[in-house]
């Protein structure tokens, strides 16, 4: 009799053990949550790699404070050198090797698109890709939460300010001939049409263009009094420099990708002064309690030689909504629960603008677009940024 009871008990224990293993979510244990991220640490896109290191500092800070509901974050970051084949390899290796609960941020459109289907098919959450592409939300994906405001919205906000506050009449755009640039063009066109205006010139810039004289000629011929620079930082600086040499000095405006003013001033040798850009996050010298807290964590955990720049703390901002979602889940952390809690996020404010999500609706891309607002800043002497507006949302 005793033997049978013992056997029954043993079977029960084994079953319960197995059941608890089966119900535990992938990447979550009693004491840890595994989160992954890719980012270029080598190669031409390496400056953007600061995003992934910023996220690392945020997680270190959270772990120091005791983690999220008793679970520490185990952060797995790898270098993909902005090569989609490597991104896919790294994501698969970590996902299938150790099991990742969800993916945070990740720099670049091409690397992200190479793994999007893989993650979505496996129903693995991914929050805050570090690229303002429409691909993330069109069509919206249940497990993919975008944070970065759309370039389309940014163009609308900049144009509105140019017309209403600066009284500009002849607006032109120099745009990178890709997704990024074209989103800028369409946003500008829509906003100008609202005021009965048109772009006086649309000048495409190829990634490989080095001589900017033809571009400046076109802009000058159109007698533009304000030019939007929807290009990469290197090209933006080159256009302004060539413009100066050719005595063409309109008001320049650019995007949040060129809003790291100390960096822009350094590479433009001071020519960036006076340029107006959008900003999706608080300024580096902001004294808000949250920014000060993060800066303290940066000083404590960041490696030697790291700079407190926009890319670095953007890595914190992109992941704030994810941390909020994890906190809301409590101890009972599953992917489905996480998605449900993310959908409940309204009026969330970290160091970025306001973030809202909504229950999944395949026909509403904005249910997965967290941040919509931006504010405008102008570059001053020494690369300091002056806020021109409060947070603005396109109408």
């Amino acid at each position, binding site marked *: 009799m005793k033997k049978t009871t013992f056997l029954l008990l043993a079977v029960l224990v084994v079953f319960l053990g197995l059941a608890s293993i089966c119900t535990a979510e992938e990447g979550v244990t009693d004491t840890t949550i595994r989160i992954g991220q890719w980012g270029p640490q080598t190669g031409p896109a390496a400056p953007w790699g600061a995003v992934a290191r910023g996220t690392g500092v945020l997680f270190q800070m959270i772990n120091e404070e005791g983690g999220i509901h008793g679970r520490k974050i185990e952060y797995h970051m790898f270098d993909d050198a902005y*090569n989609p*084949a490597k991104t896919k390899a790294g994501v698969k290796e970590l996902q299938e*090797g150790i099991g990742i609960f969800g993916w945070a941020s990740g720099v670049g459109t*091409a690397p992200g698109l190479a793994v999007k289907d893989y993650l979505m098919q496996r129903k693995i959450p991914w929050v805050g890709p570090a690229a303002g592409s429409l691909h993330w939300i069109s069509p919206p994906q249940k497990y993919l939460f975008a944070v970065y405001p759309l370039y389309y919205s940014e163009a609308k906000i900049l144009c509105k300010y140019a017309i209403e506050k600066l009284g500009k009449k002849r607006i032109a755009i120099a745009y990178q001939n890709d997704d990024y640039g074209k989103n800028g063009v369409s946003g500008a066109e829509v906003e100008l049409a609202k005021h009965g205006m048109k772009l006086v010139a649309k000048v495409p810039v190829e990634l490989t263009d080095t001589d900017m004289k033809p571009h400046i000629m076109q802009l000058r011929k159109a007698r533009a009094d304000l030019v939007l620079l929807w290009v990469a930082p290197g090209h933006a600086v080159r256009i302004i420099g060539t413009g100066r040499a050719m005595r063409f000095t309109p008001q320049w405006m650019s995007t949040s990708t060129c809003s790291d003013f100390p960096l822009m001033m350094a590479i433009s040798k001071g020519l960036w002064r006076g340029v107006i850009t959008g900003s999706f996050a608080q300024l580096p010298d902001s004294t808000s309690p949250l920014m000060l807290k993060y800066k303290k964590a940066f000083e404590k955990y960041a490696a030697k030689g790291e700079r407190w720049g926009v890319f670095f703390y953007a890595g914190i901002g992109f992941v704030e909504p994810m941390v909020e979602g994890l906190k809301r889940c409590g101890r009972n952390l599953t992917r489905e629960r996480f998605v449900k809690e993310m959908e409940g996020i309204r009026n969330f404010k970290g160091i970025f603008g306001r973030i809202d999500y909504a229950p999944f609706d395949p026909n509403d891309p904005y249910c997965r677009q967290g941040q919509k607002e931006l504010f405008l800043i102008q570059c001053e002497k020494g690369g300091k940024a002056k806020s021109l507006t409060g947070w603005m949302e396109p109408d």
Partner: protein
Amino acid sequence: MDMKRDYYEDVRLFGSKVVLFWFLVLIAFLGFFPFLFRNYYVYLANYMAINVLVAIGLNLLVGYTGQISLGHAGFFAIGAYGTITLMTSAHLPFLVALVLAAIGAALLGFLLGLPALRLEGPYLSIATLGFGLTITQVIGRIGFFGGRQGLHAPELTIFSWHLDSDRDFYYLLITITVILTLVARNLVKTKVGRAFIAIRDADIAAETLGVNIMLYKTLAFAVSAFYTGLAGGLYAFVLRFIEPQIFSLLMSIIFLAMVVVGGLGSLFGSIAGACLLSWLDLELRNILSIPYLGGWLEALSKSYFSITGVSNIQLIIYGSIMVSIMLFEPLGIYGIWIRTKLYWKTWPF
């Protein structure tokens, strides 16, 4: 041991029964591979197989015919873009689109072969370099090819077989790779291959012997481009998303490095070179997690480099491996293999 007694013995696909036996063992291993290793390694094998196809194609041109190319990323791009657009715009089935795209690449390869009739060495490398750079520029500016925004690969179905996992794709890819490797082996062992080699060794002598230089040089470019185009079409489905930036100059150089590191003028070398460099490309990322060595490298980096310096160690090691192979064995991995074989055959002398 290796003495051949007649012509037919020389052109045989498998030199001996032993070679055939090991070939069959390899095929059996490849067949069971996805069941023995986890999915990530299947993806790695797919990546390697694609590079093997490119390396074989490029070796036919560089190693066997003695013509250099720094523009193979261009053929690779044509294969990738051609396959996807033929599937999405002309609604052709995958295999038809893949072969047509590869034929398209071969036609361009033939055209590129024409200037090669008059150019040699560094001049030819500049011409092919220009070709590779132009292709991505042109594709990037044409809206039909998705411009700089890239293209998504459609769902992959062959008859009623829906390939949606790495394992399904692996079987397709390995079948194609094995068949094309055998085709290449047959090619180099018979008339065409002999003509290629004759051109490489002394083109004037070859011409006096009746080898049609124009035909065989352009043919070498076309065949090489066909292999690369086919590999490109398959690569598009490994990534499932392509954009012009992927097919950079660096890609062409890595392709050439695979052939040189593996061993010029050897199919075994192409396979070994492609596998080694693809493996290093994807796996060196983990160098910091190697016990002892990883910790030591990290400490070294922290005291002498900046934080991003540590990631560059993988590139330094990648480079040093290539340099040391070339330094100690100019024939590449194939040379090491020959030396090892010779050592054991003559052991203990």
